[in-house]
C-alpha cells in the first residue's frame, strides 16, 4: 500500500498540500465507514485503498463491516439486481430478513462517530439509530439507479431520506429526494498494478508471453464478453476500416466459464474473428492486471464501445495510459470524455469505424487526444480527487444548504 506522498509526483505537490489543508479542518472528527464486505467487490477495493490514505493524512477514519447470514446476502443480492434494473421477486419475508439483520448489527456496532458514512443498500437501514446519536449520516450509493426497480427503491427510500445527504457517481443516477444529493465520481488508482507505469521491457515481455505480435498498430477493447460491451460491433467497425489501414484488433476479456450468456457471446466473437488473422481474442484470468496494463500501453487506439454502462471506469484506465479512446456515449462515459477534445464518443458501428480510420490516419491528432485524455483523468478521476471530494463532503455535512462554506 502506498502513502499519500507517493502521489505527489503524479498529481503535483500543490494538490496534495491542498488535501492536507482540508484534512486539518477535519482534525478531531471521527469518520466511520460501514459497508457489507471487507474483501471482494469494488467498494471493499476502494475502502482498502482509501482508509490508509485517510489515516496517512491524519484523519480519524474507521471502517466497520456489517454481518449477516446467507439469507441476508441473498436478499441484498436481490436488492442489488433490482436496483440495477433487473426485475426480482422480493417477498415480505425478504424485507423482514433485511430488517432483522439491521437490528442485529445495530446492537453490535458502535456508530457513535462524528460522521457515519454508509456504503450501498446493505447497511443503509442502520440510519435508524441516527436520531439517538445526533451525528452526521451520509449514504454513498455506488449503484447505477437509473433503471431501478420501483418496489425495492420504495422500500429503501424512506431510509435514504433519513440521511443528511447521499452521494451518487453520475448525474443520471440522481433521484427525486428530500435530502441533498452530491455527485462524486469514482476513481482509479494510478499506482495500482492495472494503472502504474510499466517499463518498455516489461511490456514487451508480457506481449511476447501472450503471443501478441506488434508488427502492426494495435487496436484494443478490454471488457468482458457481454453484448452490452458490443464486442461484435467493435469487430464490424474494425472490418469496415481494414481495407484502408494496417492494424490488428485485440479483444481482451475473461474466460466467461461461469457465465452462459458470456460464453455464447465469446463463441460468436471467436466465430467472427476466426477467418481474420488480424483479429485476436484473448481470455485472461481476473487477476491479469499487469497484462491488461501492458496491452493498453502497447495499443495505438483503445475501444470501449459499450451500449450500456454504469460509470465505465475502464475508460479512465485507458485514458490514463495516454491513448486515444473511442467509446460509446452511454452511462458515465460522457463524463470522462469531452468529444473530440479528450477522446471520441460514438453512437454506432459506422461512427466507430469512421473515427478509428481518422485516428489511425492522423497520429498527431490521436496523440493530442491521448494527452488531453490523460490530463482529464489526472484532474478528475484519480483516487486523490476522490479523497478530496470525500473530505469536502465530510466538511459540508449538515451545511449543504449553504452555497459558500468558508473554512
Amino acid at each position, binding site marked *: 500500500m502506498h502513502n499519500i506522498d507517493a502521489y505527489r509526483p503524479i498529481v*503535483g*505537490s*500543490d*494538490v496534495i*498540500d*491542498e488535501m492536507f*489543508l*482540508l484534512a486539518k*479542518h477535519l482534525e478531531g472528527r471521527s469518520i466511520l465507514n460501514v459497508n457489507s464486505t471487507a474483501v471482494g467487490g469494488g467498494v471493499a477495493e476502494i475502502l482498502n485503498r482509501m482508509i490508509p490514505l485517510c489515516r496517512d493524512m491524519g484523519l480519524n477514519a474507521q471502517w466497520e463491516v456489517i454481518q449477516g447470514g446467507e439469507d441476508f446476502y441473498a436478499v441484498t443480492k436481490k436488492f442489488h439486481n433490482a436496483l440495477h434494473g433487473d426485475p426480482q421477486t422480493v417477498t415480505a419475508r425478504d424485507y423482514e430478513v433485511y430488517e432483522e439483520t439491521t437490528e442485529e448489527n445495530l446492537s453490535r456496532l458502535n456508530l457513535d462517530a462524528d460522521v457515519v458514512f454508509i456504503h450501498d443498500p446493505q447497511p443503509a437501514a442502520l440510519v435508524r439509530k441516527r436520531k439517538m446519536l445526533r451525528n452526521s449520516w451520509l449514504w454513498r450509493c455506488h449503484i447505477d439507479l*437509473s433503471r431501478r426497480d420501483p418496489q425495492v427503491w420504495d422500500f429503501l427510500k424512506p431510509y435514504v431520506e433519513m440521511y443528511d445527504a447521499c452521494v*451518487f457517481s453520475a*448525474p*443520471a443516477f*440522481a*433521484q*427525486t*429526494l428530500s435530502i*441533498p*444529493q*452530491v*455527485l*462524486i465520481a469514482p476513481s482509479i488508482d494510478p499506482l495500482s498494478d492495472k494503472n502504474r507505469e510499466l517499463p518498455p521491457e516489461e511490456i514487451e515481455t508480457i506481449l511476447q508471453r501472450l503471443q501478441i505480435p506488434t508488427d502492426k498498430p494495435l487496436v484494443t477493447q478490454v471488457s468482458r464478453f457481454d453484448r452490452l460491451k458490443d464486442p461484435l460491433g467493435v469487430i464490424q467497425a474494425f472490418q469496415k476500416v481494414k481495407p484502408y489501414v494496417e492494424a490488428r484488433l485485440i479483444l481482451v476479456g475473461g474466460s466467461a466459464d461461469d457465465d452462459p450468456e458470456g460464453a455464447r457471446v465469446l463463441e460468436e466473437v471467436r466465430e467472427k474473428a476466426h477467418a481474420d488473422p488480424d483479429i485476436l481474442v484473448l481470455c485472461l484470468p481476473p487477476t491479469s492486471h499487469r497484462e491488461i496494463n501492458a496491452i493498453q500501453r502497447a495499443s495505438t487506439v483503445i475501444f470501449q464501445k459499450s451500449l450500456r454502462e454504469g460509470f465505465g471506469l475502464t475508460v479512465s484506465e485507458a485514458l490514463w495510459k495516454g491513448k486515444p479512446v473511442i467509446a460509446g*456515449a*452511454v*452511462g458515465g462515459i460522457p463524463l470522462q470524455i*469531452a468529444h473530440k*477534445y*479528450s477522446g471520441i464518443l460514438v453512437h454506432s458501428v459506422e461512427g466507430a469505424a469512421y473515427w478509428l480510420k481518422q485516428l489511425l490516419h492522423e497520429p498527431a491528432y490521436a496523440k*493530442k487526444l491521448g494527452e*488531453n485524455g490523460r*490530463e*482529464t483523468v489526472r*484532474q*478528475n478521476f484519480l483516487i486523490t480527487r476522490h479523497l*478530496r*471530494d470525500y473530505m*469536502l*463532503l465530510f*466538511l*459540508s455535512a449538515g*451545511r*449543504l444548504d*449553504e*452555497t*459558500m*462554506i*468558508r*473554512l
Partner: protein
Amino acid sequence: MIPRAEKPFHFYTRLSLPLLTGIKVRNLRELAEHIKTAPESVIYQHTHRYLQQHQYLVPEPSNDFAYWVSSVLQDDELGDELRRAVVETIEAHLSRKGDLRQLPEGKEFHFMGTVRFSVPTRYQAYDLAEFADGLRRVSVSSLYLHIFEARLRPPLGLNDFSLWFDSELGEAALAKKVSSLDPYTQTLEGLRARIIGLVEKRLEVLRHA
C-alpha cells in the same frame, strides 16, 4: 528597492462539490425554462465549474457560457445576467428554427448545483518575491479563484492580484499587465507561468534600480 505592502496578499483556494438536482431536460424549450428558474449555484456549476474542470484542455472546449461571464457580467449579478443571456439565445434560436428535437433517454441535460468552499492556504506575501513564491506553490484552484471568480465580485472585472499590486505596492503598470492577460484563452498553468514571468521581470528591474 522592492516595495513592501502593509497588508499582505493571502492566497485562498476555491474548491467545490457538485450537487445533483434530479432535474433533467431533453429539449431546448425545457432547457430555457429551467435556466429561468434555476438558483445561482446551478448557473455557477454549468459555467464556472465547467471551466475549472476543463481548464487544462488544449484546445479548450468551446464554452460560450464562460465568454458570457467575462464579457457580459461585468456590471451585474452573475446569475441574472447569464440566465437572461442564455435564455434569450435559446429562445431566439427556437423562434428561428423551431428546433424541438426530443432527445432519447440517457442523453438528457442534467441540471446540477454547487456548494463552494473558500479555504485559506498557508501562503501570504508582503512583496513581489514572496508573491511569486506563493503563486508557484498554490494549486490552480487558487489561481482560478483569484483570477476568474475575483472578476465577478466588486471591484468588477478586476482580478485579486492586480488589485493588490496596485493598491498595496503601487505597481500600477504590473497590475495592468496582469489584468490584460486573457484567462479564457490559456490553461491555468500557462497563466500561472505568465504571471510569475511578469512579476519576476518587474523584480529584476526593481533590484537593479
